[in-house]
């Protein structure tokens, strides 16, 4: 193994390798996968001078810590969190020089859920179908990190893109989810549509990388039963028999039989990725093209 690597000292609650996923394989049953907060992933890479598709680490709530085998530039973005190098405070949202043998610790999220750690050269695990993303639905790209794991890193880029400050939208106190009705909006009554557009929903603690689950008033159906399985897009608001919409995130199944009442545009999914359980949700129907 290359000596450019890092050792996982503290894996945290759920830390996975992520990049921009595996588009183009949905017809084989392969989910898109990839970083849930894609803008934060891209930003972390830019800060250390990597191309945006380079693999990063995505943490969940409790962060993670890694010991660098060689001196490496690291940046932490996404959910704001305390960053330390061998216990000394270091900036969040900026490139940080980590000497050989030192431990970079991204602490628990102060707000939001998921932080991203980019390393100069990127995480260089074995790609599967062109991507290093850990897909927790299908198991492609390996498992979540465990303490003691060694992650190979790629060759460092010539120079990080030094930046004084980076614009960053804070994690939401209220999650706004605009959606375009369809393809199965006709499976719901007018009352069901009003419930979605005006009801008080919250992010459920049962949410994960597959979907953001909701708590709130159930949506009234106009038709019972299930559809024959059909293709499911990223951002689908799928409504299972309990009537509570599930927002499909990057590890979502490629086909499904519950009706999709609407689709949330991908640019709004980064906010969903950072919404902690209990966050109020407002769904906003979009009309027109």
């Amino acid at each position: 193994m290359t000596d450019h690597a890092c050792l996982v000292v503290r894996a945290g609650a759920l830390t996975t390798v992520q990049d921009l996923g595996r588009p183009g394989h949905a017809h084989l049953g392969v989910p898109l996968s990839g970083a849930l907060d894609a803008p934060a992933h891209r930003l972390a890479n830019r800060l250390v001078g990597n191309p945006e598709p380079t693999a990063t680490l995505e943490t969940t709530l409790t962060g993670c810590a890694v010991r660098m085998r060689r001196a490496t530039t690291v940046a932490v973005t996404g959910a704001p969190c305390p960053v330390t190098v061998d216990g000394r405070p270091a900036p969040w949202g900026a490139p940080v020089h980590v000497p050989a043998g030192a431990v970079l610790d991204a602490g628990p999220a102060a707000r939001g859920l998921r932080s991203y750690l980019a390393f100069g050269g990127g995480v260089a695990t074995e790609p599967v179908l062109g991507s290093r993303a850990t897909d927790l639905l299908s198991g492609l790209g390996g498992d979540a990190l465990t303490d003691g794991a060694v992650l190979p890193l790629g060759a460092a880029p010539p120079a990080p893109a030094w930046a004084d400050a980076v614009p960053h939208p804070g994690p939401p106190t209220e999650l706004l989810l605009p959606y375009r009705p369809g393809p199965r909006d006709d499976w719901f009554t007018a009352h069901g549509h009003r419930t979605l557009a005006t009801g008080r929903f919250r992010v459920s603690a049962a949410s994960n990388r597959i979907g953001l689950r909701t708590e709130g008033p159930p949506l009234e159906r106009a038709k019972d039963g299930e559809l024959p399985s059909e293709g499911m897009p990223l951002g689908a608001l799928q409504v299972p028999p309990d009537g509570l919409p599930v927002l499909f995130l990057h590890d979502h199944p490629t086909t499904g039989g519950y009706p999709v009442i609407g689709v949330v545009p991908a640019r709004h999914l980064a906010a969903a990725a950072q919404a902690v359980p209990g966050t109020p949700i407002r769904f906003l129907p979009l009309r027109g093209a």
Partner: protein
Amino acid sequence: MRALPVGAHGLLLELDTADEVGALHAELLRRATAGTLPPVTEIVPAARTVFLDSLDDPRGFAADLETWDLPQLTAADRPGVEIPVVYDGPDLADVAALWGTTPDEVVRRHAATTFHVAFCGFAPGFGYLTGLPEEWHVPRRATPRTRVPVGAVALAGPYTGVYPRSSPGGWQLIGRTDAVLWDPRRENAALLTPGTRVHFVPRDRARDTETVR
């Protein structure tokens, strides 16, 4: 054909029969290969639909679709694979009872059927194969198994499937194969892709053991 909007750039094309889905899917692939299909990120056939993602102009594309001529597919249009099966699944007797016949006759009928991969889902490389007539459709098991072994050949509803890896599952298990359904290091990761023609070829247990040795 109905074209339903999926977000701002997706289309769900809904058809009346699985055969029409197969014909439309084949034509979409033909045009994609010929470079005459507008760019899309995904073409996902399913039971009665084909989902297209990331079209620049979904409305214009839906209008253009109206002018397409979709030729009926013939068997020769489709790539074919043969899957060797040892028909000794734990649910073979139950399936025979549901079909009102003997286990040997289930094997004979299943192996004599020409299947097509209607679509994939559930797990990478898991194909939903159609071809069994309606009177031989069977329900899922009342209690799903917590672990179905890799290579299990199974029936549920109108479909036959082969488990590409060990997983929980509620399908009726009639046999097993050592064919590798999914290997992401292969050029074609999935053995069964939508549209593929499939025959199951019976292997008896003794001969199977010999080949393994």
